[in-house]
């Protein structure tokens, strides 16, 4: 009985390959030396475990031999540009934003690009409030939309400005002085460039633009400069006759005073 029980336990504790396989392939398997006929399992451990089940050594060898070796690239990944450039379709949101951008560019005479490396919400609010007093609006657009729009329009030279955290400051009238004053109040806003009346200006250009006087003053200066030249030539031409007439007048005056002095002395004598 005990022998039987032990025998049964032996059977149960050791799994055998299916009897059919054992009987049919009993000659082939030893030649392949593939799977052992008996796999000793003590506790009946499972195939699927929470920890990583240690692979059989032969399986480990198999996995090591059949590891994937990627083909070595002839050139490093960044050496050559991609042959087929991936063109993304424009999402409807991008189209809407582009239309808005177009409108902005058409309406506003002054568009400034400013980089703000840090602005808390309160700073932005106060800046917007200050700019709103002068009727200047602050706009945000995603960089890709901006770049794709600019590259397709005449403002393509503005494209290198659009990098990183940028903000658009737009207004209908070119009120540069007020904008500069408000921007000076917040130190982190860096003015990169502006497009004023369809002409691209750098930061220094914007400064000099703000220092320009108004159009009437400039016209007056131009007119006065031109007339100055002509008036100088006229005065040069008339210098001699003017000098002569002045001398003659002086002479006449002197004659008059001499005659009056002579008449006075004659009266006194008589």
């Amino acid at each position: 009985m005990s022998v039987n029980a032990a025998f049964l336990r032996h059977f149960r504790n050791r799994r055998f390959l299916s009897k059919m396989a054992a009987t049919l392939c009993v000659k082939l398997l030893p030649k392949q030396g593939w799977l052992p006929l008996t796999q000793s399992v003590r506790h009946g451990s499972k195939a699927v475990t929470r920890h990583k089940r240690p692979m059989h050594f032969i399986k480990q060898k198999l996995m090591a031999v059949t590891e994937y070796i990627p083909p070595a690239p002839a050139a490093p990944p960044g050496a050559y540009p991609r042959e087929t450039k991936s063109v993304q379709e424009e999402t409807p949101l991008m189209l809407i934003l582009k239309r808005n951008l177009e409108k902005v560019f058409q309406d506003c005479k002054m568009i400034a690009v400013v980089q703000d490396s840090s602005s808390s919400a309160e700073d932005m609010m106060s800046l917007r409030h200050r700019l709103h007093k002068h009727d200047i609006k602050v706009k945000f657009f995603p960089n890709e939309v901006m770049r794709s729009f600019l590259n397709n329009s005449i403002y393509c030279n503005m494209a290198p400005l659009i990098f990183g955290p940028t903000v658009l400051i737009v207004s209908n009238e070119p009120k540069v002085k007020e904008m500069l004053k408000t921007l000076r109040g917040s130190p982190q806003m860096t003015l990169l460039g502006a497009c004023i009346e369809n002409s691209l200006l750098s930061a220094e250009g914007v400064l000099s633009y703000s220092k320009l006087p108004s159009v009437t003053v400039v016209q007056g200066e131009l007119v006065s400069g031109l007339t100055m030249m002509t008036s100088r030539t006229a005065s040069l031409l008339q210098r001699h006759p003017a000098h002569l007439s002045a001398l003659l007048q002086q002479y006449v005056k002197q004659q008059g005073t001499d005659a009056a002095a002579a008449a006075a002395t004659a009266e006194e004598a008589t």
Partner: protein
Amino acid sequence: MAASRKATVVLKTVKKIAIQFSAFESNVRSTREFLAKVGSEKARATNINCEVISTVKHDKSEPVVDITYVDGERLLMKGAKLTSSEMLNTFQSLCTAKDPQAKTAAKK
């Protein structure tokens, strides 16, 4: 970056940062990113006395980052061929070198 996990920059040992670049050039990207990271609110909050000054020029000059530390040392970085992460790495390694006490205390 093995130095610190935080993405913010600690400016305690820095007295002044002056960044100048030419806005329309194409090689200023890394410098502008560096400016964005260094000039952010969090970075400024670490040291309110530190000034971050940025100058925009138009003379096709190289982008230059000039950092003056509290003990007088100057770090000059020419950002034309550098990436922003490289610049940040150098900057932060020098900062930690300058201020070892606070850093080791924080790490412990």
